């Protein structure tokens, strides 16, 4: 049976290390697939102008293609080069919720993410996406420093 590992990328430099760790893990497991996930931060409860609403579908498509082009494709190319089986997916929502949901859907063994890249005031007050994920995930989470 294939073992699936979810790799969360956020476009920051820690992504390289996350990817490197994922590659190493995949090498150690006999039949392993990496599922690279990029999450566009989005809430269905935010407030928008009528014009933003009218263009939302278009913007969503743009966000997905931009994330695919800039983050997923290069990552998948690297994994392919290393001979690792991998897929990529872009989703909208909260990082922790989505990574956890994808892991559940795909019956993944583990989620691998980078340490929170920003340490702003909001993160300090409410906790970063990474710490939320660690607290709420249904599968083991590996955090790469």
């Amino acid at each position: 049976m294939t073992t699936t590992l979810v790799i969360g990328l956020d476009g920051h430099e820690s992504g390289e290390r996350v990817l490197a760790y994922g590659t190493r893990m995949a090498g150690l497991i006999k039949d392993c697939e990496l599922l690279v996930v990029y999450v566009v931060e989005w809430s269905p409860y935010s407030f928008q102008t009528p014009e933003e609403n009218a263009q939302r579908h278009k913007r969503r498509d743009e966000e997905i293609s931009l994330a695919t082009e800039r983050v997923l494709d290069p990552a998948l190319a690297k994994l392919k080069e290393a001979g690792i089986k991998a897929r990529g997916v872009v989703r909208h929502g909260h990082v922790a919720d989505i990574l956890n949901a994808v892991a559940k859907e795909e019956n993944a063994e583990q989620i691998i993410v980078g340490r929170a890249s920003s340490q702003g005031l909001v993160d300090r007050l409410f906790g970063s996406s990474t710490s939320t994920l660690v607290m709420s995930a249904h599968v083991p989470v590996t955090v790469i420093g």
Partner: protein
Amino acid sequence: MRKIFIALLVQIAAITVIGPALAQEAMTLDAQVNQAFAAVTGPFVSFIFAPIPGTSFPWIVMWLVIAASIFTIYFGFVQFRFFGHAISLVKGDYSDPNDAGEVSHFQALATALSGTVGLGNIAGVAVAVGIGGPGATFWMILAGLLGMASKFTECTLGVKFRNEYEDGTVSGGPMYYISKGFKQLGIPGGKPLAILFSIFCIFGALGGGNMFQANQAHAQIAGIVGDYPGWITGVAFAVIVFAVIVGGMKSIARVTEKVVPFMGIIYVVAAIIILAVNYDKIGWAFGQIFEGAFTGLGVAGGLVGALIQGFKRAAFSNEAGVGSAAIAHSAVRTKEPITEGVVSLLEPFIDTVVICTMTALVIIITGQLIIDPATGNYMLDGSMIATVGGTSGVALTSAAFGSAVSWFPYVLAVAVILFAFSTMISWSYYGLKAWTYLFGEGKTTELIFKLIFCVFVIIGAAASLGPVIDFSDAAIFAMAVVNIFALYFLMRLVKQEFYSYRERLASGEIKKFKG
């Protein structure tokens, strides 16, 4: 037609923009604009607000209320039976997770609400209660409850017949459902009717959705810092509106869109606190509302006076039947147009049944309206009820809140300004959609409208243009005349959708994704 229309707008704009800068001449120009406008638009305004022969009841109010009652019965009291379902939809219980990132039901509702919650809830209610007495509140709530069915009808159609373009953007609203819906049913005249609606919508957007807002925002600021020329406020507002709608300064709009709901919540919480402190008077206040609804309690026009004021202000405030909300709601991502109709019925509820009633209760409970101790009736000052500080409109609401919380008028002033601004942003979009329906989508045509819109912000703030304001109110109601006329033909399409949806919901074919 197009050329004449643009020429007329440019002419009006040119006259009044030069006006404020020319100090002394400005007065005469203002007067000239007033006069010219009154002469041209007078008959139209008188027609829209004409009373039903033999009564003092404006037929347009009757038109809205009868329509709302018909939709209520036709759809089997959908506003009560599907109220819980509407809340489930807004919570996202039925939203497909694969549609994440698209416009949610909550967002469509919040956007539409920020276009309607505003001066109508603060100033409009004060006018209604100030003339019609507490009894007006009863009729206002009734009109709000009935109006939920009108919203349901128009917003379902807005989503059903919207245009989805190849680039992924959408355009919807009465002009689209009138032309496409009539075509589908094989009824002639859809296109001319849609054009007529669009014309009224542009006037409504420039008037009630712009000039009136700018005017009232200036009045609020002037009330705090002292009197100063309105064009200063106008230019400041116009620059901000320009930055948002022309310059694409999304950050300003985003800040407003976040702050406005917050202000709305502060407003309601303040009202609840005032009511809680005076809890012993709530029973009495409702007594006044019910008694006043059927006796008038001495107000001008008695029962009918209270009823007209209540119905009229509810219509002004929640815009049910006007068609504007259908434009705002049409951007939602859903496979089922009915779901957006169901969500939209919460709009008159929140706007009128909750927020307007709060305003009315605060005015009544804080004792702003003077009662004659001998008769128990309200004392009259002309056609208005005498108030403690002799105030009316926004000032009456402000005085009512201020009598309980001394610093609240300042918060209220900020709220009014922000509400006015967000209403302008919403209406700039409604007007734009009507404009592009008439003249086609395209950067240049859009820019022309946006510039005209900004110019009208200055005009609105610069002068007290009574006839222009009358005309803009009339234009908003004229939208309702065309829209409701069309809805009578199109409501059977909504019924088909509604029945099919209801069956699939009952059979479990439509499932919850969460909850």
